[in-house]
């Protein structure tokens, strides 16, 4: 059956069964491979996307459950790759292997959306669902703090 989606402000029609997890529709049908598979059970956060501004684990989200809610993936976080989080991630050179980082950034984007100036404790709470096997957490925390500062200095998007 055909399912209508709105991904990164683009309408898409996909012919998959409704229980297919959003992650696999993004990756293998829409060829948006920025969202990553790692655990498949919502424990690592590598597949995190924004749905209606909230961080959601796409590996556990049936595509048929989304209705017409807008979906944002790492590819659509900013038009130019210059979201304050992306800028901060680059400035601090956060990634090592880099595999988890799209999910980290999307979780951080949801955090800043609702808490523009998070404390370290709020960052830890919001980000502890995202695993980084390389252990770049120190840099991730710094990058979120840096983005929160620069984001505040930037007029509303």
């Amino acid at each position, binding site marked *: 059956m055909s399912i209508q989606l709105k991904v990164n402000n683009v309408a898409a029609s996909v012919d998959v069964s409704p229980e*297919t*997890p959003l992650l*696999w529709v993004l990756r*293998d*049908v829409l*060829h*948006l*491979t*920025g*969202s*990553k*598979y*790692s*655990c*498949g*059970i919502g*424990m*690592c956060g*590598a597949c995190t996307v924004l749905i209606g501004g909230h961080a959601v684990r796409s590996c556990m989200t049936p595509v048929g459950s989304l209705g017409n809610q807008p979906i944002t*993936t*790492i*590819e659509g*976080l900013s038009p130019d*790759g210059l979201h304050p*989080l*992306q800028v901060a*991630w*680059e400035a601090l*050179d*956060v*990634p*090592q*292997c*880099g*595999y*988890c*980082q*799209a999910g980290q*950034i999307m979780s951080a984007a949801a955090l800043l959306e609702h808490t523009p100036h998070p404390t370290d404790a709020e*960052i*830890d*709470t919001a*980000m*502890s*669902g*995202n*695993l*980084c*096997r*390389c*252990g*770049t*957490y*120190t*840099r*991730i*925390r710094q990058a979120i703090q840096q983005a929160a500062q620069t984001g505040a200095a930037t007029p509303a998007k």
Partner: protein
Amino acid sequence: MKINRRSFLQMSALAGGGFALSLHCPRLAAAQAPTTPSDLTPQAFIHIASDGVVTIMARASESGQGMRNMLPMLIAEELDVEWKDVRVQQAELNEKVYGRQFSGGSANTPQGWEPMRRVGAAGRQMLITAAAQTWAVPEAECTTQPGRVIHAASGRSAGYGELAARAAALPAPALSSVKLKDPKDYRIIGHSQPGVDTHAIVTGKPLFGIDVELPGMLYASIEKAPVFAGKVKSANLEQIRKLPSVRHVLIIDGGITPAALTPWEPGMEPGIAIVADTWWQAQQARKQLKVDWDLGPAATQSTEGFTAKAVELLKAAPTSTVRKYGDVDAALKTSAKVVEATYQFPFIAHVTMEPQGATAHWKDGKLEMWSTSTLPADGVGLVAKTLGIQQSDISTHMVRSGGSFGRRLQNDYLAEAAWIAKRIDAPVKLLWSREDDIVHDAFRPGATVGMKGGLDAQGKITAWRHHFVTFGDGKQATSGGGMGQDSYPAGFPPAYALYTSMQPLMLRTGALRAPGDNAYCWVAQSFLDELAHAAGRDPLEIQLDLLSNKQMPWSSGDHDAVGDHEPTGPSVLIPDRFKGVLELVAEKSGWATRTKQPGRGMGIAAWFCHLGYFAEVADVSVDAQNKVTLHRVWAAGDVGSQIINPNAAESMGQGGIMEGMGHLAQEITLVSGKVQQSNFQNHPLMRMRQTPKIEVYWRKTDYSPTGLGEPTLPPILPAITNAIFAATGKRIRTLPLQRSGFSWA
């Protein structure tokens, strides 16, 4: 991987008649290329476009250690260009052109430091020669500024882009003849350069093995027995073939016969490969499989059985002696105090964030592979053997991976993808599920170690005896389970013995970051802490004292579980370097004036491995439920005279510490041969809320630079468990922590 064709211009076109082509067709290049790595040429690594854009080939695979930065930075420094003008491109696999293309053993720094700089310097020399010929002036009067050759006497200068065509036509100078920069003039080395792939990572561009897409590609998933090397007796294959989108269902017989010693690269495990239009559909079809397995002899194995056998072996006389000097038994008898303890550490899995997988395409008798292997040339060998084809019919693209930590030194997943590709008429991407990845890992083997140490009346160490009960066939230990003759503290105690005994293991094991050392360090540095407390001495002081009294010469080179891929360089422990990092970390952490209070403590440990020295201090608190919080870590490292990319180096140091924390809580257990762990809920990684403040300091010494992917890790385990002892008085001798009644908060 997208290959940027634009950047291969004059140099490549003119050098050797077809270098650009060689990147897409290694077989052709192999016929024309130099035959030994000592014949590395600047043309192979450096491509300069007429507009001055410099493309540098990264020869080693990238899985997060920063190899795509580090090696090209060495070339760019000596070539004398601005780093911002450099484009880095991943080389295809072709060791005849690039030399060893291996990322493991923290070896790329020591093995690349000299040759890569010489490649860059030779390229610079060719550009100078080209300018001197153009201007008809002596070469000696020409110098360079970044990206330009200058002839000061006549006021002439030319950009590298203008000179590239002429330079490329020149013979390359002998690498040994070129002059290298004085390190004080470095503009790139020693200055933090952000990861060349960071922008692609933060914008979600296709980059990793799992992201490879080819037209008409199908997706594969493999169901394997829950027990190592179990074979398919029968299965409902006809039913699975009828499922929607399923294109192929293939039985893999595999070639593994379980035996007491499993080879490093045993080949494919048996299973059933399902090939479908999408990976999710292949996974769904897997769920419908009904398989009758012949589980084979490995089904008799269990963690309980291993432990019982290890205890039995520990009581018996050791079966072999790795290193012995002095009369350790006599020394123990006459010691004023003898400390005895048994340490045990478990099997653990690699759990790279990107599970194993590969993409392969068989067409017209040739195989093209997209490989995340960190030992890709061995992958070609394994694939050729598995498929019964010639290595010359295989080409390999080296794709960034989402972590290796030693797992991708083995190539089983690559052989599987290639085997499937040869049987179908489309490109295929194989992906393991997380559960596949844990159950079929090449595990870090566990061990049980009986320790005995002697102290004299003054608290000096008189004897050190360890009986290391590992796995193997009695002659050879399983991969990652051997012990080296010079493993610390060999050479220091007046009497010393390292014995081993082995029990059979029918399971794939391998190298996990700092193989061997990631566990022996915990045993040796914990036991040293025990001896310090038994002697009433400070743990730092007793170790500095031990290091000051070397008794015996080293018997051989460094041990390295990766066998013949040992890094070059000073492979024996230099006591002053070991002491140096201990002293530095003590100073930074305020070790001498640390406060002691119930429930809070600091621990110290140090180690030498993979040519690097690290000492670490951990500050922990332990609550009433034995939940452990690591507040702060100080790390001091000595990897020689130069930190090549400081920002990345600090990150690598922090990462090693986070990984070590994870090791303390992980285990793989077997019941009836079946791995009991399956995903992150029972093989956990550390999370952000558990992240301590980590400070990394460098002690620069006059030695040639060496790698730091590995040596940062080992000391953190004993630093933490020694700190738990300081906080609680409880000595942790069994890992993971939860088997000793502790856990991470």
